[in-house]
């Protein structure tokens, strides 16, 4: 006896086998994340935070483990360098302590709260794919779009591009395609620095400008704040302009705290 079956009954799933429970689950996943991003961005960050923390811990663990495979002479060299650096820092610290004590005697120990919002970094490159930082302070702490993110010593890192109640997204100057008006070298030659992702940046300057590796790159604005150093200059005699590769002063892979200032 021939088995009868309804072709119409299976017309959708039969023709499109991928349109099954898995596809519906994936659609639901996208919808859930979309609604969280639009309606409850704080919940999305809260949900992802434990995973980001695990990722940070794993990255640190991998970094420590890779140190075990470094060769002995380079480790000894590094130890010597760190010892001399430690001695220099100790001397500097002692000088600064004495200076603080002198100033406190003169002015008292009252200090004004610094401007800006201190924020912890939840996600950073390389986990974050667009050279963006996700930080744990948002509108409730006074963060707004356009604020500048600064690293240690007031070093500019990027700008706030999106804010929710309890979190914000910062686009670093090294984000792919991001253009930042800057100055380069001791002569403060104005250039447009282009983000190349993974912390790297580049610029194009006139060949006669005399830019050399080691020159500092500053973000244009009030006060020259350095963001990176020139690592290489492509000097092609046939071209009037040279491409300059820039390395950031702060490693974006290890930024843990930022200060957000208007």
């Amino acid at each position, binding site marked *: 006896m021939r088995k009868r079956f309804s072709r119409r009954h299976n017309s959708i799933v039969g023709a499109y086998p991928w349109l099954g429970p898995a*596809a519906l689950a994936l659609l639901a996943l996208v919808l859930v994340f979309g609604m969280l991003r639009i309606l409850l961005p704080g919940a999305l960050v809260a949900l992802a935070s434990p995973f980001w923390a695990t990722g940070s811990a794993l990255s640190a663990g991998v970094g420590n483990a890779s140190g075990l495979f470094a060769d002995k002479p380079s480790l000894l060299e590094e130890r010597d360098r760190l010892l001399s650096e430690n001695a220099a820092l100790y001397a500097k610290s002692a000088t600064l302590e004495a200076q603080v004590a002198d100033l406190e005697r003169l002015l008292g120990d009252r200090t004004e709260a610094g401007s800006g919002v201190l924020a912890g970094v939840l996600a950073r490159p390389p986990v974050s794919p667009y050279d963006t930082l996700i930080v744990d302070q948002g509108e409730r702490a006074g963060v707004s779009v356009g604020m500048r993110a600064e690293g240690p010593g007031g070093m500019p890192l990027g700008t706030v591009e*999106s804010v929710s109640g309890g979190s914000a997204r910062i686009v670093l100057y090294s984000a792919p395609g991001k253009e930042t008006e800057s100055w380069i070298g001791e002569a403060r030659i104005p250039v447009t620095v282009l983000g190349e992702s993974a912390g790297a940046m580049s610029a194009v300057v006139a060949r006669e400008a005399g830019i050399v590796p080691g020159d500092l790159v500053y973000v244009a604005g009030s006060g020259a704040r350095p963001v990176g150093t020139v690592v290489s200059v492509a000097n092609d005699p046939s071209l009037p302009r040279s491409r300059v590769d820039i390395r950031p002063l702060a490693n974006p892979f290890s930024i843990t705290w930022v200060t957000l200032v208007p």
Partner: protein
Amino acid sequence: MRVMSIILALIALFIFPWQVALIAVFGASLLTPLSGIALGIVADLVYFVPGAAFVPYFSLFGLIATAIGFLVQRFVKTRIIGE
């Protein structure tokens, strides 16, 4: 296996460097083609901001991975039926 690959790729988006996450998403999309575009959109919902890039690259990659996933599945099915 399919569900596991999707879960692993989803977790990779938050834990591992994005290059590793891309590989995981691609792997998942070979088993379940639609997971490529779905996970790509999820990644962009989490990380993308308009000033960060010209286009949401993860979604674009997910779309390509999905297309490849469908092609591979079709090829595999043809081979199985042809044998």
